[in-house]
């Protein structure tokens, strides 16, 4: 495989993979060569009278035993690799993963939250434990470079969550995909895992902790740009004018006109504070023309709402 092996699991899993590739290639080539040579050797021209072999019990038994033995090995290697991916070391750092249509959110032990735009930042050579929670449909948390994948299930409060864990062995940025079809923007539900050297990570993490505890930044909650990612807005709305599932929020300003559909009727309204608030809390009442009413109502504090509106108007 060309894919980087960037976690402690990757090497073992790739070895199992190569073992199966070797077995498969051998049988595929052997049987194909045998069939093709038979077709040439025993064509009607060359071999007018067939030999009537009805079967051979010894052979039948042999080719029952061969697959049994080989697949037993495949099962065994697959199992021992797998069980490692399920046994989380005690010293693992817990980063909670939330997923929704179509965004990711990573919550660190110190309360720091990172959205899809920032991605997951982790230290190299240290185990990371990831409880996975979905707020709507089934997603799947997949980092191919680490060879891990686990479905992110919506679960009732208090239920046992699915989890994944890894220990990165290479510094760098790797893709995180959603691997379970989750709707229109499934292919955009991509973010990165940034693996930093330990010292660098410690510095970054300390900085974040300091920022969070300092009073005037309010835990980053009033930072509109951050909220835009954490609340998942980023999953459907662009800030650069590209049309996505939802309308782009570029150039939004008080007083400008907008065509909306209200209760099935098209009308033009002027954007004002109350329209913006309503668009966040009851988004499907006045629907921007040409879009489907799929946005979920947002649970926001007054402060958060204002921070978001300020950010939107700044775009």
């Amino acid at each position, binding site marked *: *495989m*060309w894919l980087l092996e960037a976690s402690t699991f990757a090497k*073992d*899993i790739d070895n*199992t*993979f190569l073992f*199966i590739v070797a*077995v498969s290639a051998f049988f*595929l080539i052997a049987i*194909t060569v*045998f*069939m093709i040579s*038979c*077709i040439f050797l*025993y*064509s*009607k021209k060359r*071999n*007018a009278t*067939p030999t009537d*072999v*009805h*079967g051979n019990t010894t*052979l*039948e038994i042999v080719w*029952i035993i061969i*697959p*049994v033995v080989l*697949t*037993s090995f*495949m*099962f065994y290697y*697959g*199992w021992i*690799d*797998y069980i490692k991916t399920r046994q989380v070391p005690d010293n693992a750092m817990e980063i909670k993963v939330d997923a929704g249509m179509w965004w990711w959110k990573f919550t660190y032990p110190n309360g720091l939250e990172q959205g899809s735009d920032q991605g997951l930042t982790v230290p190299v050579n240290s185990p990371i434990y990831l409880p996975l929670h979905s707020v709507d449909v*089934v997603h*799947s948390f997949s980092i*191919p*470079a680490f*060879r*891990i*994948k*686990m479905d992110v*299930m*919506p679960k*009732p409060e208090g239920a046992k969550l*699915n989890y994944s864990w890894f220990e990165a062995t290479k510094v760098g940025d790797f*893709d995180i*995909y959603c*691997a379970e*079809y*989750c*709707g*229109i923007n*499934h*292919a955009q539900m991509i973010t990165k895992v940034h693996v930093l050297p330990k010292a660098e990570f410690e510095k970054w993490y300390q900085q974040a902790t300091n920022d969070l505890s300092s009073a005037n930044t309010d835990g980053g909650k009033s930072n509109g740009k951050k909220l835009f990612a954490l609340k998942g807005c980023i999953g459907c709305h662009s800030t650069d004018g590209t049309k*996505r*599932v939802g309308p782009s929020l570029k150039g939004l300003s008080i007083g400008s006109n907008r065509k909306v559909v209200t209760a099935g009727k098209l009308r033009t309204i002027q954007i004002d504070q109350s329209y913006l608030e309503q668009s966040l809390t009851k988004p499907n009442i006045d629907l921007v023309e040409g879009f*489907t009413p799929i946005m979920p109502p947002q649970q926001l504090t007054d402060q958060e709402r204002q921070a978001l509106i300020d950010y939107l108007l700044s775009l």
Partner: protein
Amino acid sequence: MSKKKASQATESNNFFNQHTGKWTTFPMSWLTSTDHKRIGLMYGYSMFFFFGLAALIGLIIKLQKMYPASSGWEIIPPSLYGSFFTLHGVIMIFLFILPGASAVLGNFLLPLQLGAKDVAFPRVNLLSFWLYLGGAILAVVGILLGAADTGWTFTPPYSVTTKTISIFGFSFDSVSWMLVAAFILGWGTILTGINFIVTIHRMRCKGMTLFRMPLFSWTLYATSWIQVLATPVVGITLLMLAIERVMPVGFFDPAKGGDPILYQHLFWIYSHPAVYIMILPTMGLVSEILPTYCQRPIFGYKSIALSSCALAIFGYFIWAHHMFTTGMSDFANAVFSLLTFLVAIPTAIKVFNWSATLYKASISFQPALLFAIAYVFNFMIGGLTGMFLGSLSTSIHLHDTEFIVAHFHYTMFGGAAFGLIAGTLHYFPKMFGRIYSKGSAYAAFVLMFVGFHATYVPMFIMGMNGLPRRYHTYPDIPLFSNMQFASTIGSWILVSGIMLLLFTLVRGILKGEVTTERNPWNSSTLEWQTATPPTLFNFEQDMEVTRDPYDYPAFRLEQKKSKAGGKK
């Protein structure tokens, strides 16, 4: 059609010209016919139509992925992409490959192979076809009006909450339509299964013991049991999902207390055995084709017959290998991984026996044989790549990636569909009393074979690199964009091959050279001993079997005797 009738009327009593009325009543004479041969052909016409349709949709899906969206390439918008792959999947699976060889050739051949006049319940058989047609129309209309975008697996809670777009401006619940359509199609399948089981137990002609049945009948028998025992479960599961969409209960929606994993269990309890419904009959067809063109007994008749049954049984116990990443317990994962490897054994037995059948044979080369050999080759790749999906650690890495899609197409398209095509070409003269153009069949084969591998090999590679399936577009890195480009070009070759093949078949049916030769390939089984095309009740007299189906030495003796008798 009336001209055709005249030209085919060389044996006055064949099943084509049982209609003497006006042209207006002609369609009804087919749609209300309880003749298993007519029903088989009607399945064939509708299924190959849907096959062509879904292949074109697949072409558009591939075209969409030719370049990454970041380069400004967009053939279909993301909002419709989901509907396109759902449409492709639903048509290919529920309307084409699931009824598959057992509906077309099974209906046509089972009574012929057993020396019977018809299936056990001819009227129920017609009802099955109506259910199929009704379900098919419902599904196609449903998705055209409402653009369901759940994929053919209908995984909740997405399938519960998705709001489908209405193309004509009115609210239309396309997903529920599809679910109900699948339920109706399911009943068609169940009734066919019951019909075939009873036919095999009760209608075999004199002397035909179970172990004198041709292998295609054996696979139909195994398939029928799966159809009868597995389909009701999924039927009711899909119905519950449909009810959940219109009423405020939450059988599978966690927001209302339901459990989406329970749905996946119930769905795969059926849908895993269902892949054996798709593949088993075509394994039977290959087991008919190989000994015929080799002119020697099939190697290991009993082990092939029993391995079909083994596949049908094992198929029930491995469903959860579709769910390794859903968070099942480690123990359950281990058990299902181990059981999954069990399937390798009967599959390997079949492949080894087929290739051994070629040994020291006397092979006459025909398009049907070529497709059958390609079937074995493709199916080997499909089966061997299945090992990666049985082994836990590699399976989790490859799960829900393009690798799975490629694996599935290798078994279902390179396997099942190639096998069905091989069978159709093999039995073409018997079914229509005409001969198709061999040259154009070979050309179609080359295009299909080359195009097939060009389309799906790149998908294996992308999947190994982790690219998830059902992506409208993909990250713009050279590996993905090169592979997607190659795959798209491959799909053009493949679809042109499919179209040429369909053209060859249609032209053969309408304008092919007329033949009345009973046994053009010199086959030893019963279905070739009747007239071409067969008479209404198949055989002119009650049949009796005195030897094994592929006993070519005995068959050659019979031929010598009858020639000698003819000279006297």
